[in-house]
């Protein structure tokens, strides 16, 4: 078996006395889709932010493609091939959709002969090409979610980190995103997906990592994880304390 594309090794992140992420380890191989799930407050987003370089881990190490990347700034990780989306969409609001994506194409500072054409091709992949000349601010939420994906794809990542790209979407819109993600993995891009939409993450993921209270409590195939006692407890326990 080849070396993992991403190795998360005993990573912890503390905020004062709070252990938001507590000694979490997992691997992700090229061409693989790994789902990261857990109840609210489990530490998924904090872990996600440490992998993308926006938060430094307090302890532990992260390796990408065999190289240690712990503590590297986000722009350098992006140049290495780690793309990400934001849970709360962060479009460049006052410029066109196409310009948003061109910024992603030229962002990593490589020689690109036709940035405009390349960006247009990316927009076609997420079915947003018909909106290329609209201002990003005028897009609907599902369109903004797709723009997030397009911009992250534009840097030509080998690993794409997706933070709740389906949150707030209707079932039909979720299906559209699922088709897009399946296409992306077919192109050989590995995906790490943080998501609450269980239907989607269970059917898309090759493996699932489950977090609760900052710790990894389970890892395995979707069916295994769904039957895991500690996972069920983590989710049901939450339901006892308040509305789901």
């Amino acid at each position, binding site marked *: 078996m080849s070396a993992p594309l991403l190795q998360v090794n005993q990573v912890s992140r503390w905020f004062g006395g709070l252990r938001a992420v507590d000694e979490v380890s997992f691997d992700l191989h090229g061409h693989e889709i790994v789902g990261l799930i857990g109840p609210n407050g489990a530490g998924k987003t904090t872990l996600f932010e440490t992998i*993308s*370089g*926006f938060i430094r881990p307090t302890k532990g190490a992260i390796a990408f493609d065999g190289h240690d990347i712990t503590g590297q*700034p*986000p*722009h350098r990780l*992006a*140049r290495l091939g780690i*793309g*990400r989306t*934001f849970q709360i969409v*962060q*479009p*460049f*609001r*006052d*410029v066109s959709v196409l*310009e948003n994506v*061109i*910024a*992603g194409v*030229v*962002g*990593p*500072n490589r020689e690109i002969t036709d940035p405009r054409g390349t960006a247009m091709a990316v927009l076609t992949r997420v079915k947003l090409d018909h909106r290329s000349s609209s201002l990003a601010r005028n897009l609907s939420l599902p369109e903004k979610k797709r723009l997030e994906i397009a*911009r*992250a794809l*534009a*840097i030509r990542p080998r690993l794409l980190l997706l933070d709740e790209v389906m949150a707030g979407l209707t079932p039909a819109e979720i299906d559209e995103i699922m088709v897009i993600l399946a296409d992306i993995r077919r192109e050989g891009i590995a995906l790490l997906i943080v998501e609450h939409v269980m239907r989607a993450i269970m059917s898309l993921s090759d493996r699932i990592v489950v977090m609760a209270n900052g710790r990894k409590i389970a890892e395995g195939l979707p069916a295994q994880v769904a039957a895991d006692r500690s996972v069920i407890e983590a989710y049901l326990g939450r339901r006892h304390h308040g509305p789901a």
Partner: protein
Amino acid sequence: MKPMLLLALAVALLAGLAPLLSIYGQHIFVLVALYGSVALAWNILGGMAGQMSLGHALFVGAGAYVSTALYLKYSVSPWIGLVFAAAIGGALGALMGYTVFRRKLSGVYFALVTLALAEMALHIVSNVGFLGAANGLSIPSKPDFANFQFGSKLGFCYAALGILALVSGVILAIDRSRLGYVFLAIRENERAAAALGIDVVQGKVIAAAISGALAALVGPVYANYVLFIDPESVLGVPLSIDALLFSFVGGLGSLFGPLLGAIVLVPLTELLRSLLGGKLAGVHLIVYGVLLILVMRFAPQGLWGLLTTAIARRKK
């Protein structure tokens, strides 16, 4: 190449227009081109990259003092002084940017630091005898091309137009390159920019350096045009505010809006000054204030925005 061609055409047109103007018209021409250049340079950092400076007089003043001191004390031609001015302006911009942006200070903090630095420079120069202290430096009138004194206003029209053309050319080049997108991304959303592989600190430092270098180029031309500089005129807060104000009125972040701002506001200032004949000094500031409020209220995209939407509407 189309925008560059358009720029060349516009410059040629203006060059042809200059000799037809009256002496007073040529004076306005020079002022508009110089103030317009400062505003355009300011806009590279303040508008395109979104980092508001309240201290661009620092660059203009540095340029003016460097070239004038070199000329008066070491007989270095102001033509060479222009090169030194750009180098010093660029270095100051980079240094200022690096010290502030490295610490992740942005927005109002950056604005305040730039204001403080320009004021510090003003007070330092006001106390350095070598630079004429508060009395300033006078350049003796010796009309000669090598001395950057042209003996006619028309010569200065061309010199100022040359600077304006250079600044405009640089802006067009940025807009068409990766750097244009780096500035856009930083202005719009720094976190998203970083996620796209853009080094945000480096991008801002580059913006400050380019902006500083270009603003500094105006200093030597201005100094040799009026043959006198003092700290208040080239390092003072009013000049910094003008650069910002012209950009806001003309259209913040648009490529050439700031020039439009200068085209409207500079002649207006001169008109008010001649109408009031020295009485009510500072009344132009009240007019600026009112104009600024009107623009913010009715045309937040500035005059440039008004112009482009009007053109778009006519096309439809």
